[in-house]
């Protein structure tokens, strides 16, 4: 099984340890993984700002980098969703379609494709799970609190397999953190307030770590936590799942 590792541009530049953890984790689980060196960005930053018409170059580059793989796996629900919903190619729509159908967020790849039953891992901390909205409501990685439907959570299904990890139950289990791409600066006041409120919920449950599948949410929360000089740390779920 040939897996192309798709690492979001900001993760590549700021959080290399998440890329490393994702790579090692997939390798441990028996995948043949490579990271196409010419990948840049999925184009979501432009598209969500209303500039989807400028993403043709990103799309073409993405298709060129990832069309050869059986699966494309990404440690970000948000970037995965963008590719799934919006990737197209004038030159090679068949390849774009193949990618759209075979791009997976890391945890859903583990639960749905690899059907992972157990994970060797040790993380003796109290952890709060921050659901990214794109992962949850977009990719349906876990059930949404608004719907009258049976609960499930792919990331939590994996986290509960990790030794020592105590997962807390939040008061508002799937409220948005307020990152929202450019929203975090164009609507700075609301964005920060949302982040502070999300942190309050985790803090009230005495977590050591806030984890999640999207580092963009966590980067925003981390920025606020650091400013508050809080002891709570953020950690991407790939790092926990690769914690041995």
């Amino acid at each position, binding site marked *: 099984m040939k897996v192309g590792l798709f690492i979001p541009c*900001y*993760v*590549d*530049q*700021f*959080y*290399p340890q*998440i*890329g490393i953890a994702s790579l090692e984790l997939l390798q441990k689980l028996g995948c043949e993984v490579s*990271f196409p*060196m010419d990948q*840049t*960005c999925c*184009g979501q*930053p*432009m*598209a*969500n*700002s*209303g*500039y*989807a*018409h*400028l993403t*043709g*170059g*990103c799309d*073409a*580059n993405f298709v060129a980098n990832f069309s050869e793989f059986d699966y494309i796996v990404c440690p970000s629900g948000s970037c995965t969703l963008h590719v799934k919903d919006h990737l197209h190619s004038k030159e090679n729509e068949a390849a774009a379609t193949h990618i759209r159908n075979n791009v997976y967020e890391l945890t859903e790849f583990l639960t749905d494709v690899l059907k992972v039953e157990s994970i060797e891992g040790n993380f003796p901390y109290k952890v709060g799970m921050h659901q990214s*909205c794109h992962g949850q*409501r977009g990719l349906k990685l876990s059930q949404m*609190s*608004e719907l*009258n*439907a049976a609960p499930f959570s792919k990331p939590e299904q994996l986290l509960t397999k990790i030794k020592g990890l105590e997962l807390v139950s939040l008061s508002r289990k*799937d409220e*948005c953190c*307020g*990152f*929202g*791409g*450019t*929203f975090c*600066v*164009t*609507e*700075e*006041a*609301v964005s*920060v*307030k*949302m*982040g502070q*409120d999300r942190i309050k919920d985790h803090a009230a449950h005495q977590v050591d770590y806030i984890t999640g599948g999207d580092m963009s949410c966590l980067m*925003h929360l*981390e*920025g*606020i936590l*650091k*400013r508050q000089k809080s002891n709570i740390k953020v950690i991407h779920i790939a790092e926990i799942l690769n914690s041995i």
Partner: protein
Amino acid sequence: MKNTIDHSTAAATFNKDVERVNWHDETLWFVRSKRDKSAHAIPEWETLRETASNIKNNVLSNMHHYLQEFEEKAKENGIIVHWAADGDEHNKIVHSIIAKHGVTQMVKSKSMLTEECHLNEYLADNGVEVIDSDLGEFIVQLRKEPPSHIVLPAIHLKKEDVSDTFHEHLGTEKGNNNPQYLTEAARKELRDTFLTRKVALTGVNFAVAETGEFVVCTNEGNADMGAHLADVHIACMGFEKLVPQRKHLGVFLRLLARSATGQPITTFSSHFKKPREGQEMHIVIVDNGRSTQLGREEFRNSLKCIRCGACMNTCPVYRRSGGHSYHNAVAGPIGSILAPNLDMKKNADLPFASTLCGSCTNVCPVKIDIHDQLYKWRQVLVKEGYTPTSKTVAMKGMSAVLANPTVFKIAGKAGRFVIKNMPFMVNNSMNAWYNQREMPTPPQESFREWYAKKQKESKDKK
């Protein structure tokens, strides 16, 4: 038109009073929680939403027929039917009915349409005094403010604010903040209004094509008190309020109040089919941009909205920015997809006042894809030139770099590109992030640098 303060500026002001924002957020979250509890108690809830959505899709696709059917039946029932192309014509029609009866006062129950058309201001300019009888609307009217929520018009106010307002206007005890006491004072005041007004205006929640009747839902009974005591009842409706048949009301009445406040149904769901003996009943059917929206394929289904307000209560941005920051009669997520249709320039900021979290879409009882439409409006507004040039320049620069791996790699030594260009930095001094947040520390090497090194090492080993 007054100068419009854009959403983010108004929201920043709203956020200066942290305690009030917390209160606003928690109060609306409480309403959202009541909605969840109520919705989750109905096993077939999701089927109901799907059914309602399909009924409304049918209505939108057959509007031309249903409107004529409704008009014909309403006329047979003895109702006088008027048509208004826009807000101005709507206001003139209402005024002409009032003027014909030679009165200068009217009582009005909640109608977001009349807010949209600015009817109160128009009538005031023409010497007609309007009193809003819904308690929340009565409060904001006394304060000369617009409602901040379509279902909970005074949700931005604390009981102390209401107490001060009532003390000033109704002479209630200063400092008596008891909601029971304050409501009683309004009841006494408005009872007198109901008993003395010859003309009553109401909104319309649903209009039935098959029978020519219309339904008005209230908890207070204010629409009924007005309509059943007045000589003239004027009901104003956007044309999208239609449902095909009476039996379809069952679906919508099961969804409306549960979605809005978590109640199983509003206290009163009144079906007006014919004027009572000796009474005159009018219906004003209003377009005001709706037929244009009907023609926008990507946005047409926003017209399915039944004005329950669930998307506002669940919206994490609305809860922390308040209804007034949306500078539109209908605030929140649904307002943000309706408003650009009315005025793209004035409302270009609204589709961006969202994180696209998608909670609105999930609570919507008629399954409007609200957050997808917010995304689509962004594309339209950019293409139509309603975003700042500087942003466009920055986005073009960024997309050029991201489309070119070689340039990106040069630009992207650990952290450099992101710090300079990342979407959340575009067209902003660093301050907007740094103001209340730290930036991540750039690492020694990027992932791709680490990966290249590893690849080289393993090749060298071989």
